[in-house]
């Protein structure tokens, strides 16, 4: 694995957006598939020791993905995503919300925008997560506040950690 792959994680207060950028050592089409095909998504999207389980996924504009994060004890936390825009191998947007097991969303959710660009076998993915509710953003900021300064202060350390894995 390359050691110089970018990873950036920031919060932009003025635009109420969390920004995450990451490079991957793989061709664009493969990375696109990993973000848009349920059998691949389920293999990486849940941070260990959680597992992801997609009940269904229709990757088309207006289509939805209904999935759960499953804890080691088997507890399921459901979320529902609706695709609002798709430009193959370039961009897709979705609306994400926590949900109960019967697909009832807990609103408000958040708007996710994914941008993909490939160059020389490396693919850069930029994700922005926009929270429409100002109140919700305030809560979110409390969580992400330090993340921004850490990005600047600890970028070297972070890259080192990443490359060790």
């Amino acid at each position: 694995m390359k050691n110089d792959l970018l990873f950036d994680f920031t919060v932009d207060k003025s635009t109420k957006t969390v920004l995450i950028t990451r490079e991957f050592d793989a061709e664009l089409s493969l990375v696109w598939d990993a973000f848009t095909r349920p059998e691949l998504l389920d293999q990486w999207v849940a941070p260990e020791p959680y597992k992801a389980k997609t009940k269904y996924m229709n990757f088309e504009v207006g289509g939805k993905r209904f999935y759960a994060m499953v804890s080691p004890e088997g507890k399921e936390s459901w979320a529902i995503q609706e695709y609002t825009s798709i430009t193959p191998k370039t961009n897709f947007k979705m609306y994400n919300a926590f949900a109960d097991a019967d697909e009832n969303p807990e609103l408000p959710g958040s708007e996710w925008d994914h941008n993909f660009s490939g160059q020389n076998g490396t693919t850069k993915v930029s994700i922005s997560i926009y929270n429409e509710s100002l109140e919700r953003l305030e809560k979110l900021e409390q969580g992400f506040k330090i993340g921004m300064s850490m990005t600047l202060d600890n970028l070297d350390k972070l890259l080192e950690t990443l490359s060790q894995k």
Partner: protein
Amino acid sequence: MRRDVFQAIADPTRRAIITLIALHAMTPNALAEHFDITRQAVSKHIRILSECQIVKQEQAGREIYYQLDINKIEEIDQWVEQLRKIWETRFNQLDKLLSTIKNKKNEK
């Protein structure tokens, strides 16, 4: 009773609670629904988090919302690390998956 802040993050359930309320403030019921343990057990974890001064309560109408105490954030870089680690872990898992798929393709 005051507790050491590290006690807050020593337990996986409490880390999960912190991660959830970092995303948005939650009512006790909404929070409990994310866990398979009893509400009493969730309450106990919240009490410990309150004693660590990480979680504070806010009354909004009839509902109580738990939220992170912003003043305590500096002491808990560790949990921010935890939150960032979710994305790190996720992406590292994706790295592995991409590499596995690429290798399979090369073998063919």
